[in-house]
């Protein structure tokens, strides 16, 4: 199942590495990633794909020190092939 998230993180390059590591390690594939700098912070829009429920990722991301906010935008049901 695909999920779109918006994440606000500190404007530090290591912050991006840190949360992307969590995305991978917790079993979510990155299918879209966009990074903008705004008001001294990074705003990330990304889509991830996994069989796991998305709260398993959002709860892990939320507790990262660099992460200011995690917003779940939408859930996309994958079309049957």
């Amino acid at each position, binding site marked *: 199942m695909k999920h779109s998230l918006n994440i606000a993180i500190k404007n530090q390059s*290591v912050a991006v*590495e*840190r949360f992307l*590591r969590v995305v991978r*390690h917790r079993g979510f594939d990155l299918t879209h990633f966009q990074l903008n700098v705004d008001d001294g912070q990074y705003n990330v829009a990304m889509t991830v794909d996994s069989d796991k429920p998305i*709260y*398993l990722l959002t*709860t*892990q991301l*939320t*507790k*990262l*020190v*660099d992460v200011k906010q995690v917003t779940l935008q939408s859930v996309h049901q994958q079309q049957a092939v």
Partner: protein
Amino acid sequence: MSLRNGDLLMTGAELTIDLLAKHGVKDVFGYPGGAIMPIYDALYGAPVKHYLTRHEQGAGFAAVGFARSTGKLGVCFATSGPGATNLITALADAMMDSVPLLAITGQVPTAAIGSDAFQEIDVLGMSLSCTKHSYMVERAEDLAEILQEAIHLAQSGRPGPVLVDIPKDIQMAQVPFQPWLAADDYLPQLDLNQVAIANELLSEAQRPVAYVGGGVQAAGAQNELMQFLEKTQMPAVSTLKALGSVLPDYEYDLGMLGMHGGQAANLAVQECDVLVCIGARFDDRVTGNLGKFAAKAKVIHLDIDAAEVGKRKPAKASLIADLKTSLPQLECFVTPDAWREHSKEMMVKHAWRYDYPGEKVFAPYLLNQLSQRMPSTGVVCCDVGQHQMWVAQHMKFSHPSNHLSSGGAGTMGFGLPAAIGAQVARPDDFVMTVSGDGSIMMNIQELATIRRNNLPVKILILDNQRLGMVRQWQELFFEGRYSETNLSDNPDFVQLAAVFGIPGQTITHANQVDDAITALVNSEGPYIVHACIDDKENVWPLVPPGAANDQMMTESAK
């Protein structure tokens, strides 16, 4: 850098030591090297006492032992490159077991970073998966704030390791000190609806069990836990890390659950209808087959970390808060008589037996006797393997800070340096390590640290000339193909200790156990007992891989 009136100028290295002292850090563990020399220079004559270990991993685990035996921050230093990589295992161990740890590493000068300089490793990158948070200081003016934030983060919320990597030029630069005030921590507020659901579940429970984890120690919530248990008289089971949280004289203490847990504990959990998870995380070594773990139970989960709730097993009610806040919110319904009586019957039926018929040293008997004869305030630091499980099964602890065992990471080599840290932290307490002949060799160099500092650490080695736990699995699950687990060429451990000026004795027979314990407990300085045990002795019971916790293998049924 702009300076203001009143800013106190000192070097980055001096500021680092000064800040540690200001935060009450009196003891640190480490190993010097090129990129951290300014900090070691600032240590010279400083009020912070440094303990030189003989390997950076030893420094990391000594800091972990210091932290776990006191609840205070543990601090370790290492230089760049291999110094920092040698700390990584201790950081990972602290991450898995939520230990408040501050690691300070030297880094090559800022201008050299990224040039593959001598002893340059991307320590910040390496730290991402094994720290709660980490920094590389990029500007001298940021150092004070970063250090203060790091000290705060390591100890706040769910504790964990924090690393600060400081380039050498920043250690040598003049830096301002400005006090930094922690922003108000986000403290999760209890959801009163969830509290109501939890209390309704408790009011209806016929067979409740309290499943107690390491969070109780992290929160300092032993009193709140015992008040809850004493009022409810609820049977309690403990994880490896929680041992000591439930006081040993509690009538319904069923001991450790899980792969090598007691049968009474595992069966109670399998039969319970409400499982109150208190600062635990449904680790795979606890649950066995997760789908069959506590399958009849509705779960009430108490934890400060929201990410633990529902991670492995769904909860009917979740209380996300400090346990000192959440535990008193649970109403104390007295556990039904029938279930309490059943629990006690199971404890009697499955009580540990020490009537070993052989003439050899029986490790469970030795450890049980040791537990009864050592001071109740003593600290036991384990390594990892069969001896670790025997300690968990056969020794009693009155506080989790008295039982230091590498839980989540399961790190061999933990015990000896952790005992050094615990002895430094608690100089007036009896501190010992229980190790195996495999584990002790992983950080054997720290015998030199014991001698150097005249630490009265006691050492018990249970020697089966094997990597015993792996050998046990090879016997049971790999058709007796004993690949690389024979250690019959071990050194003579008593002679080895003697080289470091540590006296001791070897025992080989059951009738030597009592005298050896007497010598160990009564020795004023460090002492080693090398106990030779049967190489075929296994840890029982055992939940085989993939099985449910009520499918325990026992010695008679293997």
